């Protein structure tokens, strides 16, 4: 309670003093009830200003402080420290914003000064009612959860594990690797994707601090920063991981060989029902697809399961069941990656009408030497070598009808593929690229683009309206704005570069973790510039393409950033929680639940007591002090520390 209040008015250079008469304000404050001293200084946030406040507190044994200055968003945190070092509780501080809400908003000096006086009056009224608050402590479990085993998840796991934290790395598919495992080479260096990825995957497998949970999914998350309880479902592979040697005999023997559409090959290749995702899979174990395996769908496989026959290690186990486990972690990193826009959404590009219209990822699988054609470039319709290949960029990107954003990697990945195709097929294969803009923004990218321009490729600046399957060729009309001519391209193979979207299962993850998605469907960062890997939920971080489309180096950078941010939490034994949280006066609470409905952080729950009554309870670790619950509470049972009704009403009285 403030009986001896010090009022400190800042000039903020001339930002405040040119519109508010600071001297008059200081005099006025002196005359207010409860105010012991009143001072001013040019820059209250400076060392000199801070010392002024500190010394005044000590000398005059002040018990409450009012600072009339800029917005609390700027320096409240600093001033709390100053006040505390002067010997007063950090929360016995009230800030009157006489800059953004006064001097910067008005142009009449007299009226602005009167308003400043009212603001200070109100601040003093509150200061008289301030109560000391203590930051509570939260214990921290020094272990982390990483969701997603692509390069982002791999990098984040390695960084955290190297720092000494235990990491649970959960990957939905049977192997680590994500999108990088599907690629052939990476731009602009043309590194073999698998070659740079595999060492990292092996590091993860062998790291003593990483518990790798592949073919597993996160199904539930409870708790808050420092103390998450995570439920993980380990799906049944129907293959005993300890016995399986990864020899692949079962794959060759499988009755469904060549019949099951392979997701890894983006639908352009076929596999068996029992499969190894790719030759360098980590872990190198086979998995049975329960949707295509005859034993699992029909109960019998001919006269006997051929995989069981072929497996010398006896590792097939059709009786396997899903397993659920629970782990406790202190921070979570989400790295769930991206999907390509369904090419049928750009129906006019003819994906549904010709096997020879393929996506860039399907082309990547054709190029890859361990892909469905062993690296041979063929027309899917007849297996022949194409004489002409045409790329259509921006299929669905920068398009208000589909994805309004740029996919960021489309241009470079197309140029990369053109280079590789020229290498494989030689110069007599015509390469056409229809682009809207070539975005070669990164390091080494422009050089790469220049190289492609010099490689006898036909670049058309324009977007085709449709692709027509004329039977013996695919015809594309394109208006080339560089020459202002309409060209008719008769081509064999069309590669469309679709937009990038967030993975469909990120919807589930965002619900389970209670993190937001943007309007574009990607997971939402806390601040687009200054907090690109944080989410609005403390303790949960995002990295890689699940946040927004990006290339591999930006993904890796973000992953390390997320790991560092997570390590900030995990390296502490305890965390401090902001004390200006809401709390419930149980006798006044009827358990109506209105507060729960409005809380954006899911920080409130209904608790049933033994005597049958229900009332709301606030989880202080999750509460961000937004005050929505207080505003919604019909009985006044919900209050916020530091902003109680009885503290705020006198402020209103003073201003009016």
């Amino acid at each position, binding site marked *: 309670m403030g009986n001896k209040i010090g009022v400190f008015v800042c000039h903020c250079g001339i930002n405040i003093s040119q519109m508010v008469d600071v001297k008059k304000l200081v005099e006025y404050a002196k005359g207010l009830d409860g105010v012991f001293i009143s001072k001013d200084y040019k820059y209250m946030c400076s060392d000199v200003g801070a010392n002024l406040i500190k010394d005044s507190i000590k000398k005059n044994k002040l018990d409450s402080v009012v600072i009339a200055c800029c917005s609390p968003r700027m320096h409240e945190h600093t001033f709390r420290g100053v006040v505390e070092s002067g010997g007063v509780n950090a929360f016995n501080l009230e800030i009157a914003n006489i800059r953004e809400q006064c001097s910067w908003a008005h142009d009449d000096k007299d009226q602005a000064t009167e308003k400043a006086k009212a603001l200070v009056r109100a601040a003093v009224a509150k200061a008289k009612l301030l109560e000391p608050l203590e930051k509570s402590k939260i214990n921290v479990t020094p272990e982390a959860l990483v969701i997603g085993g692509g390069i982002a998840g791999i990098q984040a796991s390695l960084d955290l594990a190297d720092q000494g934290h235990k990491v649970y790395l959960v990957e939905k598919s049977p192997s680590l690797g994500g999108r990088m495992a599907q690629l052939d080479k990476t731009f602009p260096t043309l590194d073999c994707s698998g070659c740079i990825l595999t060492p990292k995957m092996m590091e993860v497998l062998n790291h003593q601090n990483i518990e790798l949970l592949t073919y597993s999914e996160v199904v539930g998350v409870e708790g808050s920063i420092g103390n998450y309880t995570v439920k993980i479902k380990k799906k049944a592979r129907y293959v005993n991981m300890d016995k399986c040697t990864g020899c692949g005999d079962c794959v060759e023997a499988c009755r469904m060989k060549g019949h099951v559409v392979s997701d890894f090959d983006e639908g352009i290749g076929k596999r068996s029902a029992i499969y190894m995702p790719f030759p360098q899979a980590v872990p190198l174990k086979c998995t049975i697809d329960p949707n295509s395996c005859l034993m699992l769908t029909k109960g019998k496989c001919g006269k006997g399961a051929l995989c069981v026959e072929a497996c010398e290690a006896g590792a097939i186990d059709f009786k396997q069941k899903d397993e659920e486990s629970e782990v406790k972690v202190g921070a979570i990193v989400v790295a769930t990656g991206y999907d390509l826009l369904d090419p049928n959404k750009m129906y*006019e590009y003819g994906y549904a009408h010709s096997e020879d219209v393929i996506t860039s990822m399907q082309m990547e699988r054709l190029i890859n030497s361990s892909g469905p054609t062993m690296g041979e470039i063929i027309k899917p319709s007849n297996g022949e070598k194409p004489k002409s290949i045409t790329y259509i960029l*921006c299929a669905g990107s*920068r*398009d*208000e*009808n589909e994805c309004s954003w740029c996919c960021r990697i489309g241009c470079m990945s197309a140029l990369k593929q053109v280079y590789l195709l020229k290498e494989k097929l030689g110069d007599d294969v015509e390469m056409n690229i229809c682009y*809207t*803009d070539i975005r070669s923004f990164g390091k080494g990218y422009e050089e790469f683009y220049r190289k492609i321009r010099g490689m006898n490729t036909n670049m058309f*600046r*324009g*977007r*085709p*309206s*449709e692709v027509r399957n004329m039977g013996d060729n695919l015809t594309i*009309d*394109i*208006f*080339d*704005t560089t020459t*202002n001519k*309409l060209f008719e391209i008769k081509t064999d193979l069309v590669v469309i570069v679709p937009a990038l979207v967030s993975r469909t299962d990120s919807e589930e993850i965002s619900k389970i973790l209670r993190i937001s998605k943007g309007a574009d469907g990607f997971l939402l960062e806390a601040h687009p510039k200054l907090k690109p890997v944080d989410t609005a939920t403390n303790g949960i971080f995002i990295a890689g393409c699940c946040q927004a489309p990006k290339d591999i180096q930006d993904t890796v950078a973000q992953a390390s950033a997320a790991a560092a941010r997570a390590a900030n939490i995990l390296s502490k034994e305890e965390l401090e929680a902001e004390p200006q949280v809401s709390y419930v006066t149980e006798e006044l609470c009827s358990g109506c639940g209105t507060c729960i409905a409005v809380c954006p952080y899911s920080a409130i729950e209904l608790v049933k007591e033994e005597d049958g009554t229900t009332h709301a309870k606030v989880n202080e670790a999750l509460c961000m002090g937004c005050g929505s619950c207080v505003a919604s509470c019909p009985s006044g049972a919900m209050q916020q520390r530091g902003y109680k009704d009885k503290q705020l009403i006198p402020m209103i009285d003073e201003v009016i």
Partner: protein
Amino acid sequence: MSITDLTSMSEAQIALRKEINERLIRLQEEISDYCYQCAKCTSGCEAHKLLELEPHKMVALLKRGLIDEMVNSDIIWTCMSCFKCRERCPQKIAPVDILFALKNMAVASGKQIPGNYTAMLQSVLSTGILQEIKSVSTSDNKTKNRDDLGLPEISKPTDPAKFMGMLSKLAVEKV
């Protein structure tokens, strides 16, 4: 300061551009500003191959405010209003509707209306319908008209004078 198109020595016609953009907004369509010249509209324009209409260029000229050269041209009358441009534009712009605006402007400014349009307009004004009942030939070389085929009387404005009175007031109305 100024910006001058050196081929025509004209500057941006800001008022006309505003007029067209406002008209588009009134019809709840996208204004031309958002066009990034991908030329998807021209690539698929049904009138381009035959008649060299370039919808993306129309939009660009509108953005620049060089309206007169379009209003005074013949090319704007080549549009077939197939709506493929509007359907496929990634910025939801409708060159077809911009062309309707330009054509309306040409008529309003007193330019000669090409082809049959005058006759169609006159017919609508005086009878309420586009053309009179025709006699058509059949595959066995007979001629038939509406009556011959037993079809009921055609629906037309019952008070043509009143109708024409109302309609002629619209002659000077702009969207």
